[in-house]
């Protein structure tokens, strides 16, 4: 028997969800008078109709409906929902068949706990709409605002009814081989038709290999090679040969970034570039791990699911590092189109940037918060070229016992898959991410979209850490891109494995054996388990409600053997699989900047100018986003995203103490400056590193214990100018790492970030994200940004030059310029060392780095959360001539220049002499002091006061610019049982 229970709020209850839905519809261009929300549950119950109906009634009252604020309707079979007075339309949003429905798991669990029978459940939402609109335009607006057609069925006034049980047909099993034709064009078509993303040369290599074996590959063998050789898994472009400017790299990444790490050979680097994350030493008992991943293409199509599974994936990277690290903090960096982009500038088939932003934030929130990992740091940058192809970077720091670094699957160990079941979700994710997006991606590639279930992953985490500490497995890795094919293939690389694919637990019947093997269904980890621990491990996982299944065995054959129902469907040589990808030499060219330096007039009102800069989306407060993330769970956060009174001052980096019983900590930060790359990608690379470094130094980390991660995102590297950008950035990474003695310990690249429309292909700006993790000896000495005391001196560290190329100030004028900020690595090395010493010696009351918006923004932000204000004198600012820019001796240039390696420090008067001595020949000067009034006051070069603004007014500009949906209508109103009071 099937039933539906539709739960709605009592009429006297305020419907915050409905109000939000109405606002979303309005943003999508449809004004309606009112929207009320309905939570729908489709239930399948066993037994005779009467018993089933009684059980359904009890499920509704005892489990699904909150008796205080809600009422429900119980509907049998296809019974239509009751019509309501004052409702003109109804919108239904239900997940498509096969799409993960995590909420249904909770329903089943609760119903069983209540001792009631239930076969299956499915959840949906409905919206009751009052307003004079037609059903078609409502359906169209709902598709933009209330759901996503990539994963959901959305209808207005439709008569389709959701049913709980959906059973796809079981396809007959047939072992399939794929002939590889002699004709090269026909051969290339095999890759294209199969969505394999293999190049013609790779296809020829595969053909030669199987010709030698005297047979055709099976479908699953070809898929395995495609997954393993994908750009996503192999990074073959950047690890390939590159010719640039007469120089030649045989392996570009290896000879730049890896080479620097090797040359530095720092003893605290425990594991670099080999495991799922980089590992650096923390204390005697623990190491910390760090990894940042991108999840760009899935987030473009389904922002909520894409970002959620992005977080889920990088957390599994942490769990799959060594024998399993425990995630302790997350960081996220997003690149979106402008949130206020006119709708007619959004390319066909792409989602509006604000839709993407809201979906991504919700995805990170729901996954990260449920997993109980604080998201304590991040950044967002905006540029129209990210509209069709947003960037979603998800980073995870983990804590790993020092004796759990080494791992290896041994012949004879069992292959155990644990966690989520395998379904048809995420087929071809690895190869999909290696292609460009286009206007039909949403429909063609929706199989590549995944919805995560954070609670399943949390269960796996809880169970596996116990198994780790009991020594029940010898190796672990996560199931990420490429699914089991990549995970098992990787673990078996140095031995061999055989897998029986029919033993893999499935979400539903009907998967073919290649689908089982390459599915990227979420929340799965693969373990190698010595046979003597099999029973204990399976029992432990069962006690935590984690499904774990033996699916095969590691061997010493050097081969990867796949069987389905006893028949061999694949037998691959692991040597060929991992080392057979053909080497390609690509040409790269060095960019010549095209923009000229603009000649802007000095603004009349610098106070108004500062307000404009504070409202620029790159600068403006990300509070609306940040507060939706749990940044304090695990009780380790010491420097949070905001500090000071009312948590109003943004901080530079997260400081976390991973152990409750120790004051040792880590600082985590990011640096990203995509606009500058258009002028000079080498300069951009140095700037991103300088920014990440500044941020950890500003909060009091050690300058000699900074480890870095690189994340490259770029367009198609077959184009020499794009590969040239990337190569120049890699060279900057090498130079900076060596100069600052800061090794890269892990990295990632995501290429082919392009969006194709009928007008041509738009690539993102080549983007480098640098993430830093640094040691903090004693978190009690951590420094925050808000000003703390009266009569403090404000010391500006670092020289200001006329460097506005790529700055926020120029961006506000629609200019790029060419006076890109230039990092002097020798100066930055000495500056960071000196600043780190000041923090260690407790000489900094407050400190903030100068970043987007320059000195003016940094000073303003330091006043937001302070009980005092600040007064600055621009004549005292240490300055130097730049080679390209306008005259530095201008108030607007001194205020808004984005010269690197600068800090604004609050110093007690009695400490000033010590600070000056410690800074030595690092450029610095006292540029002002704190004042009792909560204002920012700036005296210009001419001696007049050029800015005199209330801190609260500046903060309101800063806060409100990216406030997307203040609490609906009147949040301050306390709502009661009657909606009164």
């Amino acid at each position: 028997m099937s039933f539906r229970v539709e739960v709605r709020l009592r009429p006297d209850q305020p419907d915050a969800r409905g109000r939000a839905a109405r606002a979303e519809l309005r943003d999508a261009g449809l004004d309606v008078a009112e929207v009320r929300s309905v939570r729908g549950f489709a239930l399948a119950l066993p037994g005779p109709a009467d018993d089933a109906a009684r059980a359904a009634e009890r499920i509704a009252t005892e489990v699904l409906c909150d008796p205080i604020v809600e009422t429900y309707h119980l509907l049998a079979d296809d019974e239509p929902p009751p019509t309501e007075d004052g409702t003109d339309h109804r919108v239904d949003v239900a997940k498509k068949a096969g799409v993960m429905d995590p909420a249904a798991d909770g329903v089943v669990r609760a119903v069983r706990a209540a001792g009631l029978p239930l076969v299956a459940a499915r959840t949906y939402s409905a919206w009751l709409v009052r307003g004079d609109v037609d059903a078609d335009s409502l359906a169209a607006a709902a598709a933009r605002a209330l759901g996503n057609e990539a994963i959901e069925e959305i209808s207005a006034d439709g008569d389709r009814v959701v049913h709980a049980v959906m059973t796809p047909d079981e396809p007959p099993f047939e072992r399939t081989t794929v002939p590889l034709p002699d004709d090269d064009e026909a051969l290339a078509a095999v890759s294209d038709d199969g969505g394999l993303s293999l190049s013609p040369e790779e296809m020829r290599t595969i053909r030669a290999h199987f010709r030698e074996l005297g047979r055709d590959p099976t479908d699953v063998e070809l898929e395995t090679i495609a997954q393993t050789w994908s750009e996503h898994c192999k990074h073959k472009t950047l690890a390939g040969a590159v010719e640039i400017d007469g120089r030649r790299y045989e392996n570009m990444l290896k000879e730049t970034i890896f080479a620097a790490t090797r040359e530095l050979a720092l003893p605290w680097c425990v594991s670099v570039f080999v495991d799922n994350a980089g590992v650096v030493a923390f204390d005697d008992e623990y190491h910390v791990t760090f990894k940042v991943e991108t999840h760009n293409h899935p987030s473009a199509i389904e922002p909520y699911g894409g970002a959620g599974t992005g977080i889920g994936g990088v957390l599994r990277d942490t769990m799959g590092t060594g024998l399993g690290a425990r995630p302790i903090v997350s960081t996220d960096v997003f690149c979106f189109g402008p949130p206020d982009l006119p709708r007619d500038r959004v390319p066909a088939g792409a989602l509006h940037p604000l839709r993407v932003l809201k979906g991504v934030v919700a995805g990170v929130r729901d996954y990260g918060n449920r997993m109980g990992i604080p998201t304590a740091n991040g950044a967002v940058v905006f540029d129209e070229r990210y509209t069709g192809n947003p960037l979603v970077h998800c980073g995870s720091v983990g804590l790993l016992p020092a004796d759990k670094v080494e791992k290896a699957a041994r012949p004879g160990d069992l292959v155990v898959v644990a966690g989520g079941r395998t379904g048809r979700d995420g087929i071809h994710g690895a190869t999909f991410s290696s292609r460009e997006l286009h206007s039909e991606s949403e429909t063609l590639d929706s199989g590549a979209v995944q919805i995560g279930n954070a609670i399943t992953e949390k269960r796996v985490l809880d169970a596996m850490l116990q198994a780790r500490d009991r020594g029940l497995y010898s190796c672990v890795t996560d199931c990420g891109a490429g699914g089991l094919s990549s995970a098992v293939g990787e673990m078996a690389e140095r031995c061999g494995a055989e897998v029986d694919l029919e033993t893999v637990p499935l979400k539903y019947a009907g998967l073919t054996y290649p689908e089982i093997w390459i599915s990227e269904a979420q929340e799965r980890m693969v373990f190698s388990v010595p046979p003597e621990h099999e029973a204990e491990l399976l029992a432990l996982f069962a006690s935590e409600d984690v499904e774990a299944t033996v699916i095969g065995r590691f061997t010493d054959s050097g081969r990867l053997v796949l069987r389905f129902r006893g028949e061999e469907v694949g037998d691959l040589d692991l040597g060929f699989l991992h080392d057979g990808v053909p080497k390609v030499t690509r040409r790269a060219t060095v960019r010549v900047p095209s923009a000229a330096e603009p000649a802007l007039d000095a603004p009349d009102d610098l106070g108004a100018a500062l307000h404009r800069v504070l409202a620029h989306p790159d600068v403006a407060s990300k509070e609306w986003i940040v507060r939706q993330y749990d940044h304090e769970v695990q009780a380790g956060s010491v420097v949070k995203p905001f500090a000071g009174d009312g948590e109003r001052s943004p901080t530079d980096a997260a400081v976390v103490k991973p152990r409750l019983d120790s004051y040792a900590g880590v600082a985590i930060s990011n640096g990203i400056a995509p606009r500058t790359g258009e002028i000079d990608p080498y300069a951009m690379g140095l700037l991103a590193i300088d920014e990440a470094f500044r941020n950890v130094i500003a909060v009091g980390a050690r300058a000699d214990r900074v480890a870095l991660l690189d994340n490259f995102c770029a367009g198609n590297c077959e184009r020499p100018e794009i590969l040239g950008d990337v190569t120049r950035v890699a060279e900057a990474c090498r130079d900076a790492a060596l100069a600052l003695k800061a090794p890269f310990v892990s990295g990632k690249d995501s290429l082919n970030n392009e969006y194709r429309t009928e007008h041509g292909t738009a690539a993102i700006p080549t983007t480098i994200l640098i993430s830093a993790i640094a040691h903090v000896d004693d978190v009690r000495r951590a420094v925050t940004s808000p000003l703390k005391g009266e009569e403090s001196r404000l010391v500006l560290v670092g020289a200001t030059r006329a460097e506005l190329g790529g700055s926020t100030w120029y961006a506000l004028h629609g200019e790029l310029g060419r006076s890109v900020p230039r990092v002097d690595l020798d100066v930055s090395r000495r500056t960071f060392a000196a600043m780190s010493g000041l923090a260690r010696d407790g000489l900094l009351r407050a400190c903030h780095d100068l970043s987007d918006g320059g000195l003016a923004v940094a000073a303003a932000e330091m006043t937001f959360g302070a009980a005092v204000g600040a007064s600055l004198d621009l004549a005292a600012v240490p300055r130097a001539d730049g080679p390209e820019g306008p005259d530095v001796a201008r108030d607007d240039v001194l205020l808004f220049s984005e010269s690197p390696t600068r800090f604004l420090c609050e110093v007690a008067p009695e400490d000033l002499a010590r600070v000056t001595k410690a800074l030595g020949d690092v450029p610095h000067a006292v540029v002002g002091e704190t004042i009792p009034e909560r204002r920012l006051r700036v005296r210009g070069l001419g001696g007049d006061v050029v800015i005199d603004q209330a801190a609260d007014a500046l903060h309101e500009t800063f806060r409100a610019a990216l406030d997307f949906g203040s609490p609906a209508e009147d949040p301050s109103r306390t709502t009661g049982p009657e909606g009164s009071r």
Partner: protein
Amino acid sequence: MKPRILILRAAGINCDVETAYAFERHGAATEAIHVNRLLSDERTLDDFDGLAIPGGFSYGDDVAAGKVLAVELAHHLSDAILALIDRGGIVLGICNGFQVLVKLGILPGVETPIGRQEATLTDNASNRYEDRWVVLESASDRSIFCRKGERLRMPVAHGEGRYVPRDETMHAAIVENDRVAFRYTTAGGGEPSYPDDPNGSFDHVAGLVDRTGRVLGLMPHPERAMFALHEPARGAGFAAPTSLDEDLGDGAVVFRNAVEHLRG
């Protein structure tokens, strides 16, 4: 003899480690036990002097916050929990744990027999999950966890924390019977509006106690304010703690008082 506190674990509960630590640093012994073990042997609770239901998202909170775990406990553990209370034990529900206790009917527990839901914690008026620091005022004479009138700073982090009583009469009974443990307030003790009251709770209720004063549920997280270093508004007057033992934030008082009460 150290008081023994059972820290409840379940899929999605994620504040168990720090909640256990917060009890232990004030002299309790804790054991984290998975709900599956309690369900299979309800006498497990007999060995303990207290039960803590930590924060998190039990079973994903997808039906409604805390609902699924509440249904599980209602059918298998209600008696054991009531017996613990009857023999003088303490129960602390933080955030998701508070939602569970309210949906179980144990809090506020004005009517007898206990078990019918008298209030709820539902979607924030903002329709958003938010993590931010708030000021609480302790409002109850009977709570053993905090002295009436004390003001504490600690963070909230929830999307479903808006307290709604069954009706006005019920709320009057709750107030009359001294069941309001904490209200949101402002730094100066004034009437709060958003964001000082972060979720739009009726009468600004942030926490409830039962008739014994030994069962407390609250939306804010005292364990995330157990160290002075947790405070984000560390200003000029902030003195860095000299040792972990002296590193006491406002939230520490809740755990210290609970342990001291059990020690007698």
